[in-house]
């Protein structure tokens, strides 16, 4: 926390953009009344009643919920009626446990299982279980003196944590935003908040002190900052930022479905990055010029080695979604910060500089062939571009091309429908960036995250060096400029698919470098198009 002219400034992580000002409404952990257990029969009745009441509350929330909210709530409702779970709790009640302990312990054991294994999807589902645990406990204990009256007045919610169903219960026409101490930007609450345009900060580094209730606060969710008792200057800054933010948001929303065009009339391609095909449910193909990067690691989660048909079907779906727009699929980029059990080598002292990306594919060509075979089959169905990661020297591309030709010859011999996909490379190793003219490829795509990491010698996973890992470093921009120039000279398309392309503040610098194709996070299509639209020749 920083104190400045009486202000108290708390830092957190932005989970949903936006700005708000208002009185703080502080919700402290559960505020549950103590509860004394009764007889076995009493506890069974109390448990059944609590489940029934919780079910009614969730059913009431489902009506009027949108698709994502309904999915979350319906899963929770189904869990309340899960005969196995209920039987476990009832078994404990019969052994003389109290209803609140039996319920909490059963759910906690499940949460531990969901969180084991590192799968993000299951970690997010653990939130649903905890949400449900809190809802049923609330029924068993009854609420203590809560901030209900304050909630009705509106303001900025500050809480230990916020569950998805609690989020949906709150009246966001009165509450203007929230800052929570727990949570993560990938949690369900964060997704719900973004979808509704509610400013949200998670992981706030603060404590819920007595005495902050009702204090005026500024919630700057864009910067991930909460200011309690703001100075006049801070309030004035906020008002100015809010006017700009809201105007930008409207302008970005208006541009999202239109082509990105520079003031001089040049077209700029806006492609999307796909980490997981589920992301495509939320975007219209008309809003982009195709897929600029598909991270195929999603197929290899939990040590799975998907077969050719499985991969074919996954890639085919992407081409079908894009309706004739080009689809770029990156071959497996395992290793570095993305280990895959049984595939990536163990015991490397520096995996970011080890056997990762294409280096791994060339050492395990069987896996690589299966992927190329599936890709060549999908190439017969629509424009498909195959992109290989972590290329260092031209000989590696020549080896890839030979393997691809062999795979194509095999498909022809087997009489399987196929086509020769475009073959391109990620430019992320500085040596490849400096010698791009020596590579014989159909396209380049600059992987700015790794390029910045390798060029500034700053590990991506080490926050201590984060300030040095600046994508605006002139060395980074100079290399991007050179790759763009090589592309123009050779008549080969150059795109950029790292985080830089999704940052509206960096887009002008990339345009300065001569780039005219960006692959961005789907949620940022409008903001990036707005940055292109406003560009007037030189970045500020």
């Amino acid at each position: 926390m920083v104190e400045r002219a009486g202000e108290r400034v708390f830092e957190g992580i932005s989970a949903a953009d936006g700005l708000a000002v208002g009185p703080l409404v502080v919700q402290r952990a559960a505020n549950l009344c103590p509860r004394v257990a009764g007889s076995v029969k009493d506890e069974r009745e109390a448990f059944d009643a609590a489940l029934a009441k919780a079910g009614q509350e969730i059913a009431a929330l489902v009506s009027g919920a949108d698709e994502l909210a309904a999915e979350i709530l319906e899963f929770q409702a189904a869990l309340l009626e899960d005969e196995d779970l209920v039987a476990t709790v009832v078994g404990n009640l019969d052994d003389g446990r109290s209803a609140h302990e039996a319920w909490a312990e059963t759910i906690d054991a499940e949460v531990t299982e969901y969180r084991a294994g590192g799968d993000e999807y299951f970690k997010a589902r653990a939130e649903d279980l905890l949400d449900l645990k809190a809802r049923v406990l609330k029924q068993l204990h009854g609420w203590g003196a809560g901030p209900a009256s304050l909630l009705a007045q509106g303001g900025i919610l500050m809480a230990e944590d916020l569950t998805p169903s609690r989020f949906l219960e709150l009246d966001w026409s009165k509450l203007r935003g929230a800052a929570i101490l727990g949570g993560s930007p990938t949690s369900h609450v964060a997704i719900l908040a973004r979808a509704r345009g509610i400013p949200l900060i998670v992981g706030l580094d603060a404590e819920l002190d007595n005495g902050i209730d009702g204090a005026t606060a500024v919630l700057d969710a864009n910067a991930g900052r909460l200011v309690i008792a703001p100075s006049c200057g801070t309030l004035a800054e906020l008002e100015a930022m809010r006017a700009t933010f809201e105007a930008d948001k409207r302008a970005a929303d208006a541009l999202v479905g239109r082509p990105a065009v520079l003031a001089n009339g040049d077209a700029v391609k806006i492609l999307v990055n796909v980490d997981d095909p589920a992301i495509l449910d939320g975007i219209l193909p008309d809003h982009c010029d195709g897929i600029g990067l598909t991270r195929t690691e999603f197929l290899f989660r939990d040590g799975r080695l998907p077969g050719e048909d499985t991969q074919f079907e996954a890639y085919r779906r992407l081409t079908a979604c894009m309706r004739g727009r080009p689809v770029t699929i990156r071959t497996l980029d395992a290793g570095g910060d993305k280990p895959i059990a049984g595939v990536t080598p163990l015991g490397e002292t520096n995996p970011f500089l080890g056997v990762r990306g294409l280096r791994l594919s060339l050492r395990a060509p069987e896996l690589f062939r299966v992927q190329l075979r599936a890709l060549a089959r999908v190439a017969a169905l629509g424009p498909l571009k195959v992109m290989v990661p972590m290329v260092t020297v031209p000989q590696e591309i020549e080896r890839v091309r030979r393997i691809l030709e062999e795979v194509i010859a095999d498909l022809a011999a087997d009489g399987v429908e196929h086509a020769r996909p475009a073959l391109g490379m990620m430019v992320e190793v500085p040596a490849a960036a400096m010698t791009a003219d020596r590579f014989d490829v159909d396209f380049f795509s600059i992987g700015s995250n790794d390029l910045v990491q390798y060029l500034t010698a700053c590990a991506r996973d080490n926050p201590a060096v984060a300030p040095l890992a600046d994508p605006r470093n002139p060395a980074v921009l100079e290399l991007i400029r050179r790759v763009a120039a090589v592309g123009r000279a050779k008549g080969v398309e150059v795109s950029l698919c790292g985080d830089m392309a999704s940052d509206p503040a960096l887009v002008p610098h990339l345009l300065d470098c001569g780039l005219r194709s960006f692959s961005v996070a789907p949620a940022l299509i409008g903001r990036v198009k707005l940055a292109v639209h406003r560009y007037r020749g030189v970045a500020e």
Partner: protein
Amino acid sequence: MTKATQEATPVFALVTGKAVVRDPTGLHARPAVKLTKLAKGFDATIEIQAQQDDKWINAKSPNAVMKLKVAFGETISIRANGAAAGPAVAALVALIERDFDG
């Protein structure tokens, strides 16, 4: 790919079936809820098993179905016994093959 076979004995019939999960994100929460809701409508004990697992779990428990972590392209085995075992397996196979109705 799809098959529901009924063994000859009419009195104590174990019915089995198999189906491939076609949703790219696998058997996640929404399909798991649909599958268990459907299963609950049948007067039968119904169990399912994931391809990479030897454990059979209750097809009427959404929590157990989720924890199978069935991925895209994997085959689910189904077995049931009871009055409605035949229709139950046929209905579950059909639901999975229809990709849980989108």
